[in-house]
């Protein structure tokens, strides 16, 4: 241990970790999920700190254990891990288990935050708008899709550097600041509103059925007219809630898709919808 000249991860070492983060989900598997990827990210960290021999073997094995979290927020945990390994390299009294325990303790909360912020809201909003433009033959929809990539790049690059810079403090900051909670709540509101708009805009279903039709023109009662009198788009809403109800009963999405296909083909052939 050298108090005057502490070991520090070089700038290039950090870049080495950053490109490895972008490869870390490659070995995603059923046994230890992202373990090998986590281990790989630590490779440039150990190299840069000049760790060799038994300590290197120990360090690599320490990071080859079960690990699974959100692919963007994981970068922040990895940054914190890099900072912790750095302090361990300078002061060996920090036990390896502490590093591991901290990592395991962070997995769940970070996965939850990442899933609800990115998978649950930001991604669906981008995907919905771009897909809507695409089905209207607007080429902007195609370019809008690349926003996903921009988020992936920024969402791993900065969190990693923040995690490294602020170390374990950042977790406490996130817990107390509530900024993330506000962001997630806000994003959920936007996502729910957009889903509502999209159901109204995209799902086209109507019925041509006319009851009590006689030979006289304009006679009879058109069902669609009655439904529109209650609220326009009532059938679209009905389809959505049918799907939602089926999915909530844990029916596989692919089965629901087949049910929708059979239903629409049958009803269309019978002439009940059109």
């Amino acid at each position: 241990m050298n108090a005057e000249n502490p070991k520090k991860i070089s700038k290039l070492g950090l870049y080495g970790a950053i490109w490895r983060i972008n490869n870390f989900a490659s070995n995603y598997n059923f046994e230890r999920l992202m373990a090998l990827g986590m281990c790989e990210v630590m490779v440039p960290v150990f190299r840069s700190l000049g760790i060799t021999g038994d300590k290197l073997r120990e360090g690599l094995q320490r990071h080859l254990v079960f690990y699974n979290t959100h692919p963007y927020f994981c970068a922040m945990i990895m940054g914190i891990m890099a900072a912790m390994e750095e302090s361990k390299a300078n002061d060996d009294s920090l036990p390896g288990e502490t590093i591991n325990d901290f990592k395991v303790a962070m997995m769940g909360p970070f996965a939850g935050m990442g899933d609800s912020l990115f998978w649950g809201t930001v991604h669906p909003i981008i995907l919905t708008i771009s897909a809507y433009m695409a089905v209207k033959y607007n080429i902007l929809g195609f370019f809008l899709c690349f926003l996903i990539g921009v988020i992936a790049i920024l969402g791993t690059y900065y969190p990693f550097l923040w995690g490294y810079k602020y170390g374990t403090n950042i977790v406490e900051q996130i817990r107390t600041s509530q900024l993330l909670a506000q962001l997630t709540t806000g994003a959920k509101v936007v996502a729910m509103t957009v889903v509502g708009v999209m159901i109204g805009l995209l799902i086209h279903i109507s019925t041509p059925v006319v009851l009590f039709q006689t030979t006289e023109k304009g006679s009879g009662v058109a069902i669609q007219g009655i439904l529109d009198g209650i609220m326009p788009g009532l059938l679209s809403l009905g389809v959505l809630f049918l799907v939602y109800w089926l999915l909530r009963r844990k029916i596989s999405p692919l089965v629901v898709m087949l049910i929708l296909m059979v239903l629409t083909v049958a009803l269309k052939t019978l002439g009940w919808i059109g």
Partner: protein
Amino acid sequence: MWMKAFLVALVTGLWQLVLYQLPMLIMALTKKESKFLTWVVLIARGLSDSANYAVVIPAVLTGLVLGDIRTGLFVGGTIQLMFIGVFIVGASVPPNPYLAAILSTAIVILTKASPGEAIALVVPISVVTQFLTNGFMSLNVFLTHWGDRMAAKGDTQGIDLLNILDGTGWMFLNTIPTFLGIGAGVGVAAKLLSVIPEWLSNGLGYTSGVLPALGFGMLLLMIASSEFWPFFFLGFLAAVYLKINAVSGVVLGIAIALIYVRLKPEFNKMAVKKEESL
């Protein structure tokens, strides 16, 4: 046909060999990090992530190669809407629309089938993709054990190479079925689709207009709660009565979100505390 199949595979995935895997391989073999190559990898990751989550991208690129971008836009958009709420949560493997988007687009362009008919093929294709992904993830277990042995030897380069090998494997998992599917599968699909009677074709065309409900249903399953349902209905009413479009929907959503987050009591308490501490 095989030439076209190769071109589609190239623009939808094979390019990653040069822009994604090669820079990583160079850095791993030389054991030297490079700022420039890191950024190449980052940008390649961004492009590859976009194409994996937003299937409009592979569909349009397929359309570009086969000479019909409009079909790519429509088919890709429809499939993207169907899968909007599908994502990996925990260790589950969801059905993957990536290959389905490419093959459906190719089938519509090459066989003059209707989009509705091609979208009927999405289910079987995405199940095949899910099956392949599952198989690959099981195979990955062996590589992790291999990694264990490397870690025991302190072989850092080996761990790097193992991961890069794995990444290359994922890429081929997408591109080989693309190549084979377009090269050999489109002819088979054309024969299958040619026997579809008109009533079925009409019905399936109708189905593609209803299927977005599935994507949104899955999304609601994840984010909907009693706190957030009112916003859904606000959006719905704005669409059916005011006929607002998608982008205005986002603006409306952001406006409501800003008001809601400001007024929500839990967040307000924090704001008051902060002001006091200032």
